[in-house]
């Protein structure tokens, strides 16, 4: 697995339907062998990216390069990619093995060879016993695996998955996530996975590309996206977050203060050069995760403020408190998440408490 060479590159790719633009000047590199997830709300253009790469639709502008070769005009049936469609798109008049072998038989590969590779592929997706069934006789999860086997049997350079788990129930979706990830590791093929479900994205992806309104907002590992979001959209969209608006103060090494309604908050800016160069007084948000927020103790100097606990919600392993802070303890709504304890929460609803978060656990995003 050569994770660092680029398999596919999108350069200044734009797409419009009629006069309606859906993608604006997208640049994206997909590395060989990685599991890349394109994440975004509906209407963000994520499925369009996949359809352009797969050749299901023509580009309006820009180019797509595979191993450095421009493939923008290559017809769909010549591209070495295969798609797992959202509704599976299994051929209803063919058996499971007919479906899985289709990509080989249209290439006039010998029957014996097809039979061998179909058996292999069905073994891989654990559907060996279902070879002679028709799609209508399978459950949703089984159809899903047939679609996957059908896509990977042609040994494509890239497998495109268009929200393939959307139609499955929660438990099955979890299983399929693990299953997809393990298959991807086993066959060492690059996966491009489109979803609107961030939990799905975190669970499977090597890297995530967050899209909104036809733009790529951020591309990075799940860890980077979670702890170093580069804009308000990612900070709000990706995981639960507390955002407090304010004005930036002068840089202090790897940290920078921000003047907010909660007072002066100090946050880390390491590895985020754009926050170092932003001018003093620029509008920004202090952002900290609910699990970073905690009751202050005597040692806390920075990032100390008070708040009133408005609500407590027990969520199994953790308990989430909704806290009103800022002017009159009413202006700013915050969330605090702490591990649940069998003898009840140490927090009481209606109580006013002193709160804090460590500077290295806070980050800044420009408004």
């Amino acid at each position, binding site marked *: 697995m050569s994770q660092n060479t680029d398999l596919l590159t999108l350069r200044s790719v734009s797409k419009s339907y009629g006069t309606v633009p859906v993608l604006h000047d997208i640049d994206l590199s997909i590395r060989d062998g990685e599991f890349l997830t394109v994440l975004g709300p509906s209407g963000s253009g994520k499925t369009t990216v996949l359809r352009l790469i797969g050749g299901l639709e023509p580009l309006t502008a820009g180019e797509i390069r595979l191993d450095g070769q421009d493939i923008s005009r290559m017809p769909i049936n010549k591209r070495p990619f*295969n798609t797992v469609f959202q509704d599976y798109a299994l051929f209803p008049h063919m058996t499971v093995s007919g479906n899985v072998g289709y990509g080989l038989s249209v290439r006039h590969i010998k029957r014996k060879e097809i039979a061998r590779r179909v058996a292999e592929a069905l073994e891989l997706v654990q559907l060996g016993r279902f070879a002679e069934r028709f799609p209508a006789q399978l459950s949703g999860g089984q159809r899903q695996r047939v679609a996957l086997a059908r896509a990977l049997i042609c040994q494509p350079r890239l497998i495109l998955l268009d929200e393939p788990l959307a139609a499955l129930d929660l438990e099955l979706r979890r299983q399929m996530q693990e299953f997809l990830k393990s298959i991807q590791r086993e066959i060492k093929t690059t996966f491009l996975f489109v979803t609107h479900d961030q939990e799905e994205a975190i669970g499977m992806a090597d890297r995530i590309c967050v899209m909104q309104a036809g733009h790529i907002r951020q591309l990075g590992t799940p860890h980077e996206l979670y702890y170093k979001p580069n804009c308000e959209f990612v900070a709000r969209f990706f995981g639960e977050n507390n955002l407090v608006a304010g004005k930036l103060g002068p840089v202090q090494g790897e940290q920078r203060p921000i003047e907010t309604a909660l007072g002066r908050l100090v946050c880390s800016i390491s590895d985020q050069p754009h926050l170092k160069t932003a001018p003093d007084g620029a509008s920004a948000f202090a952002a900290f995760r609910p699990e970073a927020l905690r009751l202050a103790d005597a040692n806390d100097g920075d990032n100390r403020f008070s708040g009133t606990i408005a609500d407590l919600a027990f969520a199994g392993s953790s308990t989430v408190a909704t806290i009103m802070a800022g002017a009159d303890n009413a202006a700013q709504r915050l969330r605090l998440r702490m591990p649940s304890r069998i003898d009840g929460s140490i927090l009481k609803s209606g109580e006013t408490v002193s709160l804090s978060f460590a500077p290295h656990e806070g980050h800044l995003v420009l408004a």
Partner: protein
Amino acid sequence: MSGAGSTHAAERRLSQLITVLAFAMPVVFVLVPLAIFLVYSFFSVDQGTIVHAPTLGNYVRFFTDPIFLPVFWNTIVLCVSVAVICILLAYPAAYFLTTLKGRWRYALLMLLLVPLLMSYVIKIYAIRSILGLNGFLNKALVALGILDQPSTLFVFNMNAILLTLSLLLIPFAILPIFLSLERIPQTLLRASDDLGASGLQTFLRITLPLSLPGVASAASFVFVLAIGDFLTPQMVGGISGFTFGRILYSQFGTAYNWPFGAALSVALAIVVIAAILIGERFGRSRGTSV
């Protein structure tokens, strides 16, 4: 309580009445007349009056008289040919329709179906004048130099019936084929492309097999309509274009032999039912959802 109970009872009686009516209508208006037909086929005629005594004579005559079986067989062959011609012409038309976008698709479909609104007899007259000795077809063929002189090949014979029935019944073939083609999800075709199939491979291996149910129902539809028709053969068939429908018609009309006509109808009904069953058998698609 009792008031509520009686409303319930009234409602129940009403729904029972509706159920009875729902079953009674087809029984009274379809099954009973058919049964009367069947019964009549076992009667006979003596000097213009029907003899109500059961006999197998009509069926014996149908199978032994050298006139009826050959005409019966030729008519079946004719109508199968009509069905085949209709399918061959209707399939490309229906396929072309599904390649059109939005409004154009349905506008053109309506245009193809407009002839169904016209009087059957007028259409036959129109086609007869096209096929006739001085008709458009002959004039065109002579003008193009394909024929030296007008041919009598196209009118008042079996060819004329074949051509006329095919033309008249094409709309009945286009509709079911169009519907079955339209029902094929586009993503199946995209999936086929995606897996490396060429346009022709996608058509032969996905589109065609998935549209076969529509083809089967179109074929049985056209066949059934063609075999029951006596007006077209009567008007364009001349003397040589003798079909089973015409024989049937003459038994009820000129010959005034209703029991024998009923027996011939029963034979025809068996063929029609068989055609519908075959169409239904092949019309059922194997997989339902995708």
